[in-house]
C-alpha cells in the first residue's frame, strides 16, 4: 500500500469488513440516486432550455403516483440502511464473553492502558492477534473518544463513568489510535499506536520488560492499604457486605430495588457509598473521593472481580488474609498508591 495515497482505511478486524460492506451498499444507493438526479437535471436543462422569451410551457400538474413512488422507494432503501446499520452497531456494542479485558484511562492529553497482568502503557496498546479485546474506559478530566480507524471502533470516554468498546484484530501490524472528541489544546497530540502481535510474540512482550504485578494483586494491596478489609470481611460477618463472589450478581438494596454489581456500581460504592446501600447494612462507609485515582479504582474493581471467581486466581482470593501493618490509608493523597511504570 502506498502510504501517501489511499482510498480505504486498513481492514484489521471482522467488524471492519462488515462495516465496509455496509458502506458499499450506502455508496451504491447514493450513486444511483445522485446519478439519477444529476442526469435528469442535465437532460431537462438542455432539452427544455428557453429558446425564445415568449415560450409558454404547458402546465404539468403534480402526479400522485409519482409522489408515492419517490416517497416509498427511498423509504424502503433507507429501512435497509437502518436495519443493516443497526445490526453492525449491535455487533460493535456487544463484546464476546471470552474477550480479554484491557482498561483505558484518558486524560489531557494521553491514553493510559493497563493489562490485567499488570503491564501498563502510555499512548500504546499491545494486543494479541485473533483474540477479542474488551476495553473498559474512563476519563480523569474531560470527554475523550477512543478511536481506532483500522478496526472501525470509536467510543466516547467520559469522566465519572465506564464505557466499553471491543475489537478482534485479524491482521498483525501497527494501527493508529486517535482521540476523536475535542478535549483541549493538545487534542491532536492525544494519539498513539495499537500493536497487533502474533500470540507467542505477545506472550513474550507481556512477560518481558516492566511486567510488575497483576492488576488484581495491586488492587488487593490497595484494599488492605485503604483498610477496606477491616469492614468488608470474608472470614466472618463484618459491618459491611462480604465481597466474595459479589461481582456480576444482583444485589438487593435498602430501597428494595436490586442492582447488578458491575464496574459502575462498585465504582459508585467506593466514591459515593451512600448512593445505593446494600440491604441489611448501615450507611457507615466513608467516601474515597479524592483519595483514589481512576487507575486505583480499576485495580480495586479487578481485585473484587477476582474474589468472585472460584479456584486459584491471579492475585488470588484472600479469605482470612490478615491486613498487613499498613495504617491510615484514609489520609493518603489522591495519587496512585502502587508503584507505577511509564508514568
Amino acid at each position, binding site marked *: 500500500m502506498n502510504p501517501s495515497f489511499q482510498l480505504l482505511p486498513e481492514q484489521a478486524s471482522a467488524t471492519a469488513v462488515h462495516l465496509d460492506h455496509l458502506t458499499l451498499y450506502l455508496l451504491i444507493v447514493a450513486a444511483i440516486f445522485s446519478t439519477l438526479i444529476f442526469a435528469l437535471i442535465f437532460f431537462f436543462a438542455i432539452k427544455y432550455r428557453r429558446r425564445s422569451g415568449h415560450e409558454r410551457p404547458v402546465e404539468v400538474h403534480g402526479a400522485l403516483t409519482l409522489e408515492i413512488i*419517490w416517497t416509498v422507494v427511498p423509504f424502503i432503501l433507507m*429501512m435497509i440502511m437502518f436495519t443493516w446499520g443497526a445490526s453492525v452497531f449491535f455487533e460493535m456494542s456487544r463484546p464476546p464473553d471470552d474477550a480479554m479485558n484491557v482498561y483505558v484511562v484518558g486524560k489531557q492529553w494521553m491514553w493510559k492502558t493497563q493489562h490485567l497482568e499488570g503491564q501498563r502503557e502510555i499512548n500504546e496498546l499491545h494486543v494479541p492477534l485473533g483474540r477479542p479485546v474488551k476495553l473498559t474506559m474512563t476519563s480523569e478530566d*474531560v470527554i475523550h473518544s477512543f478511536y481506532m480507524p483500522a478496526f472501525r471502533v*470509536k*467510543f*466516547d470516554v467520559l469522566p465519572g463513568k465506564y464505557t466499553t468498546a471491543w475489537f478482534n484484530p485479524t491482521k498483525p501490524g501497527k494501527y493508529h489510535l486517535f482521540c476523536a472528541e475535542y478535549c483541549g489544546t493538545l487534542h491532536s497530540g492525544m494519539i498513539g499506536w495499537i500493536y497487533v502481535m502474533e500470540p507467542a510474540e505477545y506472550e513474550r512482550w507481556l512477560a518481558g520488560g516492566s511486567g510488575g504485578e497483576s492488576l488484581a494483586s495491586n488492587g488487593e494491596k490497595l484494599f488492605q492499604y485503604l483498610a477496606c478489609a477491616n469492614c468488608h470481611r470474608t472470614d466472618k460477618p463484618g459491618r459491611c457486605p462480604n465481597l466474595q463472589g459479589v461481582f456480576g450478581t444482583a444485589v438487593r438494596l435498602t430501597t428494595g430495588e436490586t442492582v447488578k454489581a458491575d464496574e459502575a456500581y462498585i465504582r459508585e460504592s467506593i466514591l459515593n457509598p451512600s448512593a445505593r446501600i446494600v440491604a441489611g447494612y448501615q450507611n457507615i462507609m466513608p467516601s474515597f473521593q479524592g483519595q483514589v485515582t481512576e487507575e486505583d479504582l480499576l485495580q480495586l474493581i479487578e481485585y473484587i472481580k477476582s474474589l468472585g471467581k472460584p479456584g486459584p486466581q491471579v492475585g488470588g482470593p484472600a479469605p482470612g488474609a490478615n491486613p498487613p501493618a499498613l495504617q491510615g490509608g484514609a489520609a493518603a493523597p489522591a495519587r496512585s498508591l502502587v508503584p507505577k511504570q511509564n508514568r
Partner: protein
Amino acid sequence: MITATVETRENYLTHEYGVKSWLLTQDHKRIALLYLGAISFFFFLGGIFATVIRLELLTPPGDLVSAQTYNKLFTLHGVIMVFLFLIPAIPATLGNFLVPMMIGCKDLAFPKLNLLSWYIFMVGGICVLYAMLQGGVDTGWTFYVPFSTSYANTYVILTAVGIFIAGFASILTGLNFIVTIHQMRAPGLTWYRLPLFIWSMYATSLIMVLGTPVVAVTILLVALERGFHFGIFDPALGGDPVLFQHLFWFYSHPAVYIMVLPAMGVVSELVSVYSRKKVFGYKFVAFSSVAIAVLGFLVWGHHMFVSSQSVYASMVFSFLSFLVAVPSAIKVFNWTATLYKGSISYDTPMLYAFGFIGLFTIGGLTGTFLATLGFDVHVTDTYFVVAHFHYIMVGGTMMAYLGGLHYWWPKMTGRMYAEGWAKLSALVIFLGFNLTFFPQFIMGYLGMPRRYHAYPEEFQVYHVLSTAGASVLAVGYLIPAVYFIWSLRYGKLAPDNPWNATGLEWQTTSPPLPENFEITPVVNHEAYDYSILEEMKVG
C-alpha cells in the same frame, strides 16, 4: 409590467436620508438591509478564520499557528458562521424583506419588535467580537462539558452570553413571521396560494420559536456552571455531561433546519420562475417543510451514537433520522420534475439553484449514511461529518442564499448586477466548493479526526486538495462582493419585474415604495401561475 417604469415616486431607499433614518427605521426592507450588512461582515470574518485553518492544514505538523490559536480559530469560525451568519442569513435578510411583500402587506406585524431584534442581534454579535478581541474561546462551537465548564481557560462565558443574546433576535423574528403570515395575507391569498418561500419561512419560524429557548437555557447553564459550579453537567459535582449533549443537540440539530428550510424555499421560487412552471407537487413541497420542522425535533440523538447513550435510544434516533430524510427527498424529486417540459433559462440565480440541488443531494445522501448506526460509529467526529455538514450548510444554504440574493437584488436595490461576472462566480464557487469538501469525505472515512491541529502524513494529499479548493472558493466569494457593490452605483436600472415572475413582490416598483404597494393587491390565482402575466399584458 415588463418594461422599466420611470421612477415617479420616492422608494424606500430614497424617501428618507441620514444615519438616523436607518438606525431608527421600522421598515422591514431597511431592517433587512441592516441585517444584510451585519451578516456579510460576519461571513467575511468567519471566512478569514476558515482561510487560516485551511492554510495551517496544508502541512501535517502544526507549524503556522499554535495549537491553542488553531483551536480558537475553528471555534470562532463555527460560532460566527453558525450563530451570526447561517441562522439569520436567509430569514433575517431575504425573509425580512420578502415576507410582507410576498403576502401583499405593508410591513411585518410588529415593526418595532423587528428593529429590536436587529439591535439584540448586534449586541450578541458584539459580545462575541469582544470575547474574540479579549483572547477568544477554544471550546469548539459545541461547548461540550466538562471541558467548557471546568477546563477551558478562555472567554467561554462572554461568548456564551453573546450567543444567548443573539438567540432572542431569532425568537423575535420567528414570532413576527408567524403572526404576520397568519394575520396579514392579502385578500384572496389563501394558504395554498402562498409562495413556497412563505411556507418554508413559516416552518423555520416554528423551529426558531420552539427550539431557540432550549439552547438559550443550555448556554446559560454552561455559564452558571462555569461561574458558580452549579453541578448540573460536571460529574465531579454530581452532574451528567451527556445531559448537556442532549440539551445542546435538541436545539442544534433543528438549527440545521433553520438554515436549510429557508434555502429550500428560495430554491422552490427560483426553479419555478426560471422554468416558467408551477412547482411540481406544490402541496407535497409545502407540507414537506412542515414535516421537516416537526420531525427535525425528534432526531437529535443521532449526534450521540458513541456518547454512551443507550443502544436502544440510538436505534430509535437512527430510525427517526431516516424519516426526516423522506421529506427532503420529496423536495428534490419535485424540483427536478418541475423542470420537465419547462422553459429553462440559465440566469445566475438558476445556476445557483442547480448548484443547490446537486450539493444538497450529496449532503442529504451522506446524511442518511450518518443516520446509519454502524457507519456513524466509524465516521462521527471525523472529516466525513465536516464534509457532510458543509455540503448542507455551505453547499445548501449558502448557494441558495446567493441565488436568492441575485434573484431579488434588482428588487432590493433597483439595480442589475453584471450577469457575466455573476455566472462566472457561480461556477467558480461550485467548483471551489466541491474541491474543498469532497476530499474531506474520503479523508474522514480513512479516519482523519476533526479539530486536529496536526495530523499524520498520509492525510496530507487530501488536505492539500481541500486547501486548494478553499482558495478557489475564496475568490468565488470575493467576486460577488465586488460586483454587487459596483452595481449599487453603476448597475443598469432594474425593471419592476426583470424575471417575469408572478410573486406579489414583483408587482410593485423596484425598489419598492416605502409602504410596498400603492393599493393592497387582491389575489385570485395560485402561486406560480404564469398565465396571469399574459392576462396582465393584454389587460
